């Protein structure tokens, strides 16, 4: 019992030291830099178009769990949902030559990609689903990116804890062949908990990058002036890693 007390005291002192270090300038800079080193290593060790594993249709999970917003009640989302998303528009805007405004029908008529992939939540769980939709690269090419565009921001209809959800990726992930604007999950229109009517798939990163309830795709030169400036809802709100490949 005494020994356990000793360990607890040592542990507490160690944690206090760690937190002191984390609050220091060097410490916080190091803690923030590590995700970038992993990203560089991942990018160095594989082709930028290397594919995340795809599974046979039989591997699909019987139910696809939803997290974060699972039933948005803000703005006109509830009425859009009641209307079967018939009037939903997806804008492609920002640093593009030809801004687009697409209906769900427009999106369904584009060349489609279907992929059975595993979705990994930052919390630790995984689910497998079959996603269908056009590649983001098709939309970006149609809108013609301007050379100064460096990041693609995903705007969402859901408002979580008073903030509009958004996410962003760099052009490598934006142009990755498995990055699709999904409108079908397992052959059916997306359920509301999984992002109806449109959700972006960023298959080499964790679940919070896969923005749901997609309303706009925006090309930008910098993330500094978007939201809180860290590139995504959870990044701004809770300090989640912008590169979510770890």
């Amino acid at each position: 019992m005494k020994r356990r007390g000793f360990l607890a005291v040592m542990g507490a002192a160690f944690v206090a030291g760690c937190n002191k270090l984390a609050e220091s300038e060097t410490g916080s800079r190091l803690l923030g830099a590590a995700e970038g080193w992993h990203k560089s290593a991942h990018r160095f060790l594989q082709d930028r178009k290397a594919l995340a594993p795809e599974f046979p249709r039989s591997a699909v999970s019987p139910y696809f769990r939803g997290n974060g917003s699972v039933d948005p009640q803000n703005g006109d989302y509830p009425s859009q949902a009641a209307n079967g998303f018939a009037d939903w528009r997806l804008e492609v805007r920002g640093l593009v030559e030809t801004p687009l405004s697409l209906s769900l029908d427009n999106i369904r008529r584009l060349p489609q990609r279907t992929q059975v992939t595993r979705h990994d939540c930052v919390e630790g769980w995984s689910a497998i689903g079959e996603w269908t939709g056009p590649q983001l690269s098709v939309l970006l090419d149609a809108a013609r990116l301007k050379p100064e565009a460096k990041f693609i921001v995903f705007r969402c209809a859901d408002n979580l804890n008073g903030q509009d959800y958004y996410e962003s990726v760099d052009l490598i992930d934006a142009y990755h062949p498995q990055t699709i604007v999904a409108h079908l999950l397992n052959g059916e229109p997306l359920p509301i908990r999984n992002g109806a009517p449109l959700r972006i798939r960023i298959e080499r990163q964790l679940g919070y990058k896969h923005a749901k309830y997609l309303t706009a795709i925006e090309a930008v030169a910098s993330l500094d002036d978007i939201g809180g400036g860290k590139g995504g809802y959870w990044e701004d709100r809770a300090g989640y890693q912008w590169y979510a490949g770890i």
Partner: protein
Amino acid sequence: MKRHALSTRLWHWVNLVCVVVLFMSGLTISNAHRLLYWGDWGFSRSQAWFEVPRFPDWMTIPGYYDLALARDWHILTAWPFALGLLFMWAAMLLNRHFRRDIATSISEWRWPAIREDILRHLKLDFDHGDGKYNFLQKLAYGLVLGVFLPMMVFTGLAISPGIEPVLGWMVDLLGGRQSARSLHFIFAFALFGFFLVHLALVLLSGPVKQVRAMITGGRSDEA
């Protein structure tokens, strides 16, 4: 000749700090989703093989629930941990520490000898065996260096979706991402078990002398 080479001493202490930070930040990450699964996927209790207890804040880094900050600590410390292990393996192959002191020979794997070794340990007599380490020590250090620590690195890589396009074969070999995550947890606790036994045996076998030797190097003729 020193009892412990400089490379061993450096790695030992750097690795200790890394493992403690990784373990304690890992407990916070475990608290984010306390269910473990086998196979590729799993997200609810009905698929889980084990429900991990919630670890109290005082055991965790940063000492309160903050998944993002715990992940920052975890993925930062993973670098010195993995590169340090690589360094230690290179060093102990080059300076023959592994072959001379840790690798066992077939003749040591005989039950009477192993039983004798266990009995000696139970009598708190640790100073026996022909080499620097007795059989149980070789076995423990060999398992930690050759299995537990490398498996932490491999299973950790296997649960990172960003590296899976090139390491997909390793994820398959480990039985899928959720199996890799379960193994990550199991080996972390195997290491924790080693840590407790190691600490107890150091305390029982002259802690001042042992710790001093791991800092200054000590002399090879003192056990």
